[in-house]
């Protein structure tokens, strides 16, 4: 079975209304029509039968009838047809007479003749002639009172009457029924539209509200009208939205508290750490004066203190991102120059890093943050991947402004597929066994935040040659 195309609620409601209206209108019209038709026909039939009987009873019969007498009777009866003019046919033995030119009628059926002969009662039959016009045929046998019993005299009179007048009346009733039903259906559209509107408006409101809720506007509420099922639904929607808003607010607050805590802790750690760093540097320089065991311990403390200082700096940086306090300090820089300086500063300008830099390309960006990004990406590649690391910088013209595209590829084993989705997560360790690494665990997270601040994207993938491939894509002209 082919499925019918889905129809809107409005269409369905209107169709249902119209169907109900049509059924009731047609049923009422039909029943009324049938009653009226039956009444009209019954009236005509009863009048015809009783008129024929009454008129026959005024005619004295001199039995046995002669042709002349039979003719006189039918001529007499044929004059006074009621309710319409009729033709009268008389039959007595083999004698036949009629009030018209034809001696017998084509409308009187053998069935009617048999019935009247077998059982002397008045009878009628509605028939149609060859042209389909309706006729009424009435058969009336004549009886006489003989020795207290009614005996048939043998005379039967038939009257045939066209029902043209009744047909017109009946047709007029059909026409009237049609004229009544069609405006009725048209009027039914109005309550259908009103009902559809009353149902559809809350539904539309609710759809819009759900859309707004989905877009994050959790304060969206629906106006509750009336007290029907739709109003109940709206109330439930409002309660749900309220509960959702409250939960989200609580979550946000908890998250903000946690971030504030991390930020406060890093701030508090910074001052003592600065002192410790100064002390460990001094001790580091004097290490050779101590015995070897103490010197090794001193160097360990110094190294770990340095890492702690980096971690605290990184934590403070990411806290600034979380607090949306990070700002761009935009400069016009030469990209090739900036990359080269960044690598030189970390002594990566040897064979381990290959660069492919365009000349004379100027970009507008925060040079400090760009340095952090590049250092993190290349440092990460050297640490987890392997030399040589290729850094290529290109620009791409786009309708909405030129883009800066930097690819950093290493020659390592690549990133495991299950790790890829989490590579930018904070403190994510690719190898669970290696709990202590050289980095703080925040490097890539800070890199990503910096790129985002510039309005760009950073993606990690595995290159065609097998190594990890980080692709940075950001506008050549960043907006503050």
């Amino acid at each position, binding site marked *: 079975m082919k499925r019918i195309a889905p129809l809107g609620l409005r269409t369905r409601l209107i169709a249902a209304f119209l169907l109900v209206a049509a059924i009731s209108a047609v049923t009422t019209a039909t029943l009324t029509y049938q009653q009226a038709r039956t009444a009209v026909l019954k009236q005509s039939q009863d009048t015809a039968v009783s008129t024929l009987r009454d008129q026959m009873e005024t005619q004295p019969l001199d039995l046995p009838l002669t042709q002349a007498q039979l003719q006189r009777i039918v001529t007499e009866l044929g004059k006074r047809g009621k309710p319409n003019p009729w033709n009268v046919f008389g039959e007595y033995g083999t004698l036949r007479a009629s009030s018209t030119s034809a001696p017998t009628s084509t409308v009187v059926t053998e069935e009617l003749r048999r019935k009247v002969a077998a059982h002397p009662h008045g009878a009628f039959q509605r028939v149609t002639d060859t042209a389909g016009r309706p006729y009424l045929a009435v058969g009336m046998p004549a009886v006489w*009172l003989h020795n207290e019993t009614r005996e048939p005299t043998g005379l039967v009179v038939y009257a045939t009457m066209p029902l043209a007048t009744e047909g017109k009346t*009946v047709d007029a009733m059909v026409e009237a029924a049609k004229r009544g039903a069609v405006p009725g259906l048209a009027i039914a559209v109005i309550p259908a539209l009103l009902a559809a509107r009353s149902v559809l408006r809350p539904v539309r409101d609710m759809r819009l509200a759900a859309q707004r809720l989905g877009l994050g506007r959790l304060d969206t509420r629906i106006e509750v009208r009336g007290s029907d099922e739709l109003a109940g639904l709206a109330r439930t929607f409002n309660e749900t939205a309220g509960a959702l808003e409250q939960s989200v607010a609580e979550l946000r607050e908890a998250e903000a508290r946690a971030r504030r805590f991390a930020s406060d802790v890093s701030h508090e750690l910074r001052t003592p750490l600065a002192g410790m760093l100064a002390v460990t540097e001094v001790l580091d320089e004097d290490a050779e004066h101590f015995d070897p065991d103490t010197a090794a311990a001193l160097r360990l403390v110094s190294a770990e203190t340095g890492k702690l200082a980096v971690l605290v700096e990184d934590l403070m940086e990411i806290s600034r991102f979380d607090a949306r306090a990070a700002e761009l300090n935009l400069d016009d820089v030469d990209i090739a120059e900036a990359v080269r300086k960044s690598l030189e500063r970390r002594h990566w300008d040897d064979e381990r890093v290959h660069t492919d830099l365009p000349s004379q390309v100027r970009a507008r960006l925060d040079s400090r943050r760009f340095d952090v990004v590049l250092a993190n990406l290349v440092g990460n590649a050297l640490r987890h991947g392997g030399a040589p690391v290729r850094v290529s910088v290109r620009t791409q013209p786009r309708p909405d402004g030129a883009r800066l595209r930097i690819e950093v590829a290493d020659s390592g084993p690549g990133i495991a597929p299950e790790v890829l989705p989490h590579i930018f997560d904070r403190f994510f360790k690719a190898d669970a066994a290696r709990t202590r690494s050289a980095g703080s665990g925040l490097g890539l997270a800070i890199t990503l935040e910096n790129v985002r601040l510039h309005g760009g994207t950073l993606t990690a993938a595995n290159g065609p040659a097998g190594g990890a491939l980080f692709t940075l894509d950001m506008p050549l002209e960043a907006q503050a």
Partner: protein
Amino acid sequence: MTRTRPWSTARPRTPARRRTAAAATAALLLGAVVLTGCGIKPTGVIESGAAGKVVVPGPGTKGTVYFVTADGRLFPVPDRDQPSRSAAAILVKLLMGPDEEARAAGLETRLPPLDIKKQGASAGTSMLSDDTVGVGLPFKVGTLSEVARRQLVCTIASTEPGYKVVLLGPDADVGPARCDF
């Protein structure tokens, strides 16, 4: 704007089918009601009231001879000039057969032809009991048709209403029988 899925795809098919069936039933019903028709439809033969009761003029209705038509229906012919008060007189009238006028209307008799001069004397009636009339006939009555017997019984009974009639022939006696219509 997102378009919601129509509910019918989310629900099992049975309710949809049931709905279709209900709609079809409603449509059929509606169609049937409408089709019972416009216009005037033919009918069978419908009886309506009594037959017309006519007056048959004449000195009396006693003494009525019954003849028959080809299809076996009895037609009464009252003896209008000289009402035959006696059963024997009316019997003779019956045995003489229909006159010119009656024959013109297609009336006939199913009784055997009779030579009144030779056989008339052997025809006669007699009371067999309080309510039974015997009719002596000069021909065999055992072989008479049902219509012929009714002719005899009704003609005799018209002079003695309510009497039973026994037909007495040279071969057998038939009856008693009443005349009923």
